[in-house]
């Protein structure tokens, strides 16, 4: 019944999140998203490459821009400036939506749909 299926989310985050969105328990209208981090970006999220998350989607449109801040508040483990910059990802991090370049889909303005798979790949690590 909980809208977040993340293992490492803590109580503080849940209550913040519930406060911001006005929802706490939602079962029917969850937006299920698979997040993947690679190319070195996984280091920023505790070396866990895959994160299955769900958001309450009733009366709320989620864009990737919203998702980025959610990631910052909930799963980024260190140095958020290495992930986020000026409301988008830091240049050098590639984003794919269902295996397609997010630059083809209006980047931060893309509206998430259930079962979307969002992949973040750092190009900044190792040569």
């Amino acid at each position: 019944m909980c809208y977040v299926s993340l293992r490492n989310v803590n109580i503080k985050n849940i209550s913040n999140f519930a406060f911001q969105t006005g929802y706490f328990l939602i079962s029917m209208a969850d937006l299920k998203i698979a997040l993947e981090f690679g190319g070195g970006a996984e280091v920023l999220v505790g070396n866990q490459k895959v994160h299955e998350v769900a958001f309450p989607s009733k009366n709320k449109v989620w864009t990737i821009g919203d998702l980025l801040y959610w990631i910052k508040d909930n799963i980024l483990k260190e140095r958020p400036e290495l992930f986020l910059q000026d409301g988008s990802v830091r240049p050098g991090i590639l984003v794919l939506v269902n295996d397609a370049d997010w630059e083809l889909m209006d980047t931060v303005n893309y509206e998430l749909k259930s079962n979307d798979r969002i992949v973040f790949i750092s190009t900044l690590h190792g040569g």
Partner: protein
Amino acid sequence: MPVCSIHCGRNAVLKRPKTGDALCKECFFEAFESEIHFTITRAKLFKPNSTVAIAASGGKDSTVLAYVMKMLNEKYNYKLKLFLLSIDEGITGYRDDSLNTVKQNRDDYEMPLKILSYKDLYGWTMDEIVAEIGRKNNCTFCGVFRRQALDRGAHLLKVDCLATGHNADDIAETVLMNILRGDVARLNRCTSIVTDNGDGIPRVKPLKYTYEKEIVMYAYFKKLVYFSTECVFAPNAYRGHARMLLKDMEKIDPSVIMKIIQSGETLKVKSTAKLPTLMNCTRCGYISSQETCKACVLLEGLNKGLPKLGIGKSSKVKKALDDIQQNDSLCCSARGNSNVNNIKDLKDKKCLCLGSQNVLSVQIDEISLEKLTVE
């Protein structure tokens, strides 16, 4: 979902930074590979029947380079004998994983692999060097040693050519860095697609015009396995700043990368400008702007217990090297004492072993290729 700009009827999966085209996976592979082929043939990078070592780090660039080189070699019948060449710096937890990735490349692409270690080449691992010098300047050592290690490896394998995975972003970054440093001599040659370090073995950069974004996307769509962890010692190296500046500019206009490379290529240094003349190192024969090359200076410093030798100005280095020559019998007490940064510190100290000459465990001249370990 936009459709492919080639009008093949498929959905696009990527926006090309170089052209702005939206391409499907198949058309992207075709464009990516044929552009590298075009770069290779236009610059005549390889002669048929030659042996080419591919510098393999296990990272994205060299993994993609090895994959594409194998593919193009077969597709266009270059008639090249391809090898993977890896350097093991001896950094715990860094190379262990990346060397496994290189071994994976070896198996996947069915290419012979040679691994050379710093320990074999220089008598020191990077871990041991860090223990001497601390973390501040170790990238100087690592970079200088790595450059020569590849050349020595190329000799050992008797290759005709050494191919490295430098991509367009790397080269634009190097142009920026040399401008910021005011290094006119390097600025002049850093954009060359073929360079010669004085040993007659050309170093070539087949990915010179290939964007980093496309390399990563190519590896992703082709499911190529590569290793990606920042060097544990270099989270904030100077290059990182040039890199972020470039990435910020690329976000505004991706063509800036090609423009910086073109600017670097067309830049001509006035014939009257004074550039450092290049010569061969008197100790190891490597091309150098000084009598003694940087690697030999650093090595001398390490072996004499003066690990910071060679980090500073080259004029001071010459003086210090001369002093070492004169004080050779005195310096053994300083060996392993990294607090001694200056030859002057030594002169006041009494030598504990009464002038024994057995200070230097590795004579540079003795580092011959026969001693290298080949896996």
